[in-house]
């Protein structure tokens, strides 16, 4: 069985690329900052407000978002035995959006005094996590009834439709300001987090990551299918529960803090498998982490449109990269493997 050591060189290269992308990401922006100043502000000898309070937390957010979405996609593709599974396709992101829509837009519908209390950053985070968890739970219940994995994907799409329908209804009743707030949240953004928020984000992310790591063995067993996994002594219910919790923690908090980021969760595991050519999660999990972080940093750098004053919505960039990957997977001659 290929061990981590077999892939040592690939991992070293990826880590170097990650560091490179990290520096490139904080070097590029609408304001050009000399590299020397960047280094100095990183070690703390010079105070540079933009670096320390804007670009650095943004780069860290990008790393957490990319790696977290990639890992949750990997977990779901194995759990649902479906190469098209991912937080976005399965409707988990939609669930989070629905939660946020209810909070931001619903606040206007359900009364004015509550509104101010409700629409804090934390209530958005909680609503998004709750929304994604509920959708994932629904998907899981359906998947235990329906053996056909295609049906699960369709149900995910339906959740997306329900979300947009509810949003349309709510937007009819809400003020322009609230609508704008929701739409901006929907574009996705990596740059809105303070250090304190990033800290909370990191803690929840870490719990999700740890749960993913303890699921590695179970995930490998699930590659054989559920009945084989059970015959190999796996506690199916417990493993499935841990995987689901890990996924909803990762995808839920990411969507809450950074908005619905499309396609990264679906595309990253496939890109990783193309390079590493293995199904072993002991290799895939760290590899997906690195690939996710790198690609998210690159997407963010592109979104910044270096040297210009404009910033593109991050969601547009990830879709531009992710959607072709999905198409390419579908038209490839060899059957989709995962």
């Amino acid at each position, binding site marked *: 069985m290929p061990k981590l050591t077999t892939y040592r060189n690939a991992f070293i290269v990826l880590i170097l690329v990650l560091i490179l992308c990290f520096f490139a990401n904080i070097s590029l922006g609408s304001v050009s900052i000399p590299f020397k100043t960047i280094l100095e502000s990183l070690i703390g000898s010079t105070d540079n407000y933009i670096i320390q309070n804007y670009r650095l937390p943004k780069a860290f957010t990008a790393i957490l978002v990319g790696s977290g979405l990639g890992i949750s996609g990997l977990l779901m593709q194995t759990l649902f035995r479906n190469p098209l599974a991912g937080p976005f396709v399965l409707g988990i992101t939609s669930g989070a959006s629905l939660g946020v829509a209810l909070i931001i837009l619903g606040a206007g519908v359900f009364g004015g005094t509550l509104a101010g209390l409700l629409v804090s950053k934390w209530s958005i985070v909680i609503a998004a996590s709750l929304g994604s968890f509920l959708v994932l739970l629904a998907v899981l219940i359906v998947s235990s009834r329906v053996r056909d994995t295609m049906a699960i994907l369709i149900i995910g799409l339906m959740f997306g439709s329900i979300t947009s329908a509810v949003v349309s209804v709510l937007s009819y009743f809400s003020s322009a300001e609230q609508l704008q707030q929701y739409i901006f949240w929907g574009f996705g953004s990596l740059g809105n987090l303070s250090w304190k928020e990033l800290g909370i984000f990191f803690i929840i992310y870490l719990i999700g990551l740890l749960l993913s790591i303890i699921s590695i063995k179970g995930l490998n067993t699930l590659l054989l299918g559920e009945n084989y996994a059970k015959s190999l002594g796996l506690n199916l219910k417990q493993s499935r529960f841990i995987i689901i919790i890990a996924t909803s923690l990762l995808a839920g908090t990411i969507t809450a803090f950074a908005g619905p980021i499309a396609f990264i969760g679906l595309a990253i595991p496939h890109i990783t498998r193309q390079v590493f050519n293995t*199904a072993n999660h002991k290799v895939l999990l760290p590899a997906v982490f690195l690939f996710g972080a790198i690609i998210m940093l690159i997407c963010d750098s592109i979104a910044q449109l270096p040297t210009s004053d404009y910033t593109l919505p991050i969601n547009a960039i990830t879709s531009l990269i992710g959607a072709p990957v999905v198409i390419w997977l579908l038209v490839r001659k060899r059957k989709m493997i995962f």
Partner: protein
Amino acid sequence: MENKNQHIILETKNLSVGYKTKKEEKLIASNINIALQKGQLIGLVGANGIGKSTLLRSLTQVQAKLSGEILLNDKPLASYSNLELAKSMSLVLTEKVASKNLSVFELIALGRQPYTNWVGTLSEEDIAVINKAIAHTNIEELKNKKCFELSDGQLQKVMITRALAQDTDLIILDEPTTHLDMYHKAYILKLLQKLVKETGKTILFSSHEIDLAIQLCDSMIVMNKKEVVSDSPCKLISKGVFNNLFPEDLITFDVNTGSFRVKK
């Protein structure tokens, strides 16, 4: 050969199998009393829909039994934890492996899961067991191939090797010869016979290849509408058990050759 080892590994007493829903019980087969002797190759045969799969699913605890007792090594099957059961019984199922991107070695190595640590690291002992299993089934040349590159026959050999690597006293296979050509059907069953002889394991398989099973098995379990009979193939033939296995308007059992004939 029957006298070689009379120790019983799996035994059922008045077992009834079927499906239980909230509203009703659907009885598929009842009054099943079988005993699997250690170190034997046992074939389970019967017409379609008679309940072979249901019986196997109940024996492997994939589904719950309706009533009666199943004893594995003299202990009730239900008292085994998942992990204990994984160390006593390994399976080859009809369902397709979920991920075809696994290499053959990786797939076989998953058979060691009940013995490995929390992250599934293979010890040297694990690798030795895996290589021994690979040597038993003669698939060294497939070791580094991916599962999607294999033919059905090769994949079945790999799945049997995985079950061997799980290192259990009992291996149960659900219709291991479906989708295979005549040569590979004989090859797989012959391989099972060889494994029983070489490793001393007990192997139970269900199959529609009654002719082959009669030639290769140490004992057979025959399921028909009325009863479940278990004995050595010769005795089963002399008892005439095979004669009324199928409706006689189309095929009949020829006692002299031990095979079925189509009525012309």
